[in-house]
């Protein structure tokens, strides 16, 4: 059974304080690893897809990386508007997409 574990559960950062979120996964035949952002009262919003170990994707202050066992979401010099819950998900072939429970990020001005 596919498993996704995210850590930490919650993270509080000062504005400008860089950090990383972790997503560890166990899946048979990874087809893609997704990162999503979720704001309160809204559905998850797609950020990145990573397909193979060594791949990296960037968007503004966010950078996602992938190894054979985990993915990291690096946040450089975060701003208060980066506060949200960040979700990681894995997909194997045509099978279901399995989500982790997320990391709730709070960036304090």
């Amino acid at each position, binding site marked *: 059974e596919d498993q996704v574990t995210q850590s930490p559960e919650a993270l509080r950062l000062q504005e400008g304080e860089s950090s990383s979120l972790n997503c560890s996964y166990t899946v048979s035949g990874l087809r893609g690893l997704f990162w999503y952002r979720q704001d309160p009262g809204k559905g998850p919003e*797609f950020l990145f897809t990573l397909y193979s170990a060594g791949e990296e994707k960037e968007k503004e202050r966010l950078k996602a990386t992938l190894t054979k066992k985990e993915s990291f979401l690096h946040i450089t010099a975060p701003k208060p508007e980066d506060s949200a819950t960040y979700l990681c998900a894995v997909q194997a072939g045509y099978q279901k997409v399995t989500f982790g429970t997320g990391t709730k990020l709070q960036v304090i001005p």
Partner: protein
Amino acid sequence: DARVTQTPRHKVTEMGQEVTMRCQPILGHNTVFWYRQTMMQGLELLAYFRNRAPLDDSGMPKDRFSAEMPDATLATLKIQPSEPRDSAVYFCASASTTQGGFSPLHFGNGTRLTVT
């Protein structure tokens, strides 16, 4: 921007009542997912469809939940009878099938269900 539309946004009902949630997937997407989100469990997959055919509904309590796609523009999730433990936010998501998998899932803003 194309969006997944879910109705209603909020639903409060009494235990034992029937609840129907609706989802309009993004035009052209052939795969539809239903997820339930709670604080304790996070996002749990209930069911998903490809080209309107159910592929996996193992996440649903079969005795009370049912999911259908009457046509390509409408997916429904029904709970009958509803119970307090069904209180959660229910999300619909849609995607296109690509070679070897899916395009990223696009989510609606959910239906917040409260069963008293």
